[in-house]
């Protein structure tokens, strides 16, 4: 670490601030104890057990992540070429860190783009990161009470979406 000055004005860092390869977790909520950047692989699957993954377009299955402390931000565009055996409700698996297992950590977002869908014009697609897992469940705003689970039949073989959101890691 190139730490050139510590003064009342704060740190003066001219070559980045490295964190150890293995994070040293600190309980103090005012201490930044981890930073990491990388990629993850998103796969659209159904929610059956075991899941049936769709066939991904190899050029659109990798997303980026940045983890700052316990907050992970993920982005990515995910496109399929075939539904495979997927049926029923669908999700995108492969988040780089497990979502914290607490109701207060629930988070979702709206799709930034959609293509290859078979939904009604005017409806929108959103998602919800499920606690204690590494996937997001997809929903459509298409019922009078709010959302319903997006179905594989609504995604279609060449389905295409962009996501981006932040969540608390376990």
């Amino acid at each position, binding site marked *: 670490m190139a730490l050139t000055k510590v003064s009342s004005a704060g740190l003066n860092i001219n070559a980045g601030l490295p964190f150890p390869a293995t994070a040293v977790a600190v309980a103090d909520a005012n201490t930044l104890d981890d930073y990491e950047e*990388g*990629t*993850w692989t998103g796969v659209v699957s159904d929610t059956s057990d075991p899941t049936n993954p769709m066939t991904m377009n190899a050029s659109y299955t990798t997303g980026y992540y940045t983890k700052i402390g316990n907050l992970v931000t993920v982005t990515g565009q995910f496109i399929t070429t075939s539904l495979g055996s997927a049926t029923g409700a669908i999700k995108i698996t492969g988040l*780089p860190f497990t979502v914290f297992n607490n109701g207060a950590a629930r988070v979702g977002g709206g799709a930034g783009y959609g293509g290859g869908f078979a939904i009604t014009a005017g409806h929108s697609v959103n998602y919800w990161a499920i606690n204690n897992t590494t996937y997001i469940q997809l929903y459509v705003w298409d019922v009078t009470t709010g959302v319903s689970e997006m179905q594989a039949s609504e995604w279609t073989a060449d389905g295409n979406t962009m996501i981006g959101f932040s969540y608390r890691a376990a």
Partner: protein
Amino acid sequence: MALTKEVKYDKIEVVGDSKHVQCRQATIVSEDGVELSRSFHRHVLHPDSDISGEPQEVQDICAAVWSDEVKQAWSDYRAAQQP
């Protein structure tokens, strides 16, 4: 001048009561033994994941932490998430 590329798991973490195994794969590019860059790709294994394609080191960790109780608890949790 010799450029080399090495891919390895440089961090394996066990997280939470469900014993999720978080794997970080590092791609390291070096020149004459001096590291030039290191990039990361991550994935997470759950107690019902297929680990047959994972390195033996990862399989050993999974086998050590995924007890029958852990697997059953994860199965119950998964079932509760089904639509």
